[in-house]
């Protein structure tokens, strides 16, 4: 902040966004974890997320991609999204974080996005499914990445030259997220013909 005499306002929009997005992602991970338990206990259980050949999570949960690191992916979500919520609540409480903290948070979310991009590819190209709870995770991880990354740029976490770029782009974050969704939607439509199969 250059205007030293203006007290920096508490970033309540950012805080609320992190809490809402983190809670939605956590809920999706929780549902997937429960469904995974169900399929383990009853291999032929009718999961309420299995709506059709196209829209289902059973295939995703049963696939090896669903346990990419040797354990079910949603367990990662249960931990990771709780951290997102915690950061959001801390911001609302007026917490100030060191530069390294923001960088670590950004790295974690970038990792989550990279994993989500891989999962989107596997789901659309290999499994041929759209899994509802998985899509909720995609839906929140994409803007989480853009918001946190652009916020860090705009606040000068990555230096002053990046700061100018960041503050110019930050106000476009909703559009950037929408365009990211659009890329996924267009790929899904081209590969799976979603519109004609729903």
């Amino acid at each position: 902040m250059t205007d030293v005499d203006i007290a920096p306002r508490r970033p309540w929009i950012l805080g609320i966004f992190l809490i809402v997005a983190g809670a939605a992602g956590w809920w999706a991970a929780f549902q997937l974890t429960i469904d995974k338990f169900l399929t383990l206990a009853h291999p032929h259980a009718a999961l309420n997320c299995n709506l059709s050949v196209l829209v289902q999570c059973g295939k995703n949960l049963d696939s090896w991609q669903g346990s990419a690191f040797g354990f079910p992916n949603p367990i990662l979500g249960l931990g990771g999204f709780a951290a997102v919520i915690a950061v959001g609540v801390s911001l609302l409480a007026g917490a100030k974080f060191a530069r390294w903290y923001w960088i670590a948070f950004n790295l974690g979310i970038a990792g989550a996005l990279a994993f989500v991009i891989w999962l989107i590819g596997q789901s659309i190209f290999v499994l041929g499914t759209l899994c509802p709870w998985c899509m909720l995770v995609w839906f929140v991880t994409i803007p989480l990445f853009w918001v946190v990354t652009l916020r860090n740029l705009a606040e000068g976490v990555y230096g002053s030259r990046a700061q100018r770029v960041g503050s110019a782009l930050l106000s476009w974050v909703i559009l950037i997220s929408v365009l990211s969704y659009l890329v996924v939607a267009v790929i899904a439509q081209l590969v799976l013909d979603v519109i004609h199969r729903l």
Partner: protein
Amino acid sequence: MPDDRLTKNDRRDAAREQARLTREKQKRAENLRRWLIPTGVTVVVVAIVAIVVLVVSMSAPPPQSKAGPKNMISDGILFTGSGGKMVPTTTGAVQASSNPTPNDQPKDGLAHIVTYVDFTCPACQAFEATNADTLQQMVEQGTATLEVHPIAILDTHFTVGSRYSSRANNVGACVANFAPNSFYDVMKAMYAGQGKEQTAGLTNAQMVSIVHGAGLKNGDVDKCISGETFKSWVTSATIRSGKGPLPNTTVPNVAHTPTVLVNGQEYTGSLTDGAAFTDFVQQVLAG
């Protein structure tokens, strides 16, 4: 408080405070402006996308562009028992831009078994390996009818562009159309010679030789397989079963293959346990 009662310091503080408030107000206005244009653009983009989706989905669903196979008026081929034999029911075809006509399932004490299968699906292969002969016996003995719906849901499980699932289920349609008496044998042979997932599957020529191996040598069938004659029907029948509603059952749509219905009730037991399946059939018949 009148101005002249203020000290110099007080006045300076007041002026500073005024300036601070003004700056804050300006900053807030500037912030609002910074977010106004992007938000507006976003709303416009979302609106355009919504309109495009709406137009595309209304121009849908793609109608079946050519007639389907004969003897599959319900999108499936129906077998009944007659004189100790398993006999396919002869019907017309689902015409272009038309819908299938479901078979009636009378409450006649028979087990009316309907299967939705993909010839390229390993789970269907497992189910058929366990139960195909039992099913045939039940139909031959006149205790059951069997209606097989081949659908192609697994193109994405094979090399992109190979379309093995679509082509393999076209084989079922070709045989139903030209040689319905050979359908069951060809289906079993297609499962036995099934291509592996994550490969290109089988070529049309390979499938023709599987059909020959099953004892069906028919030039029309061979041409139908290599020309993928019932391509549009396979696509339409697959979409229809995936969307639902399905006839003669409360199961809304086909969410996986094999979907096995006995008098409308879905079999959810083990695909490799023959006894579990026959128990289920008895249970449904007992009501």
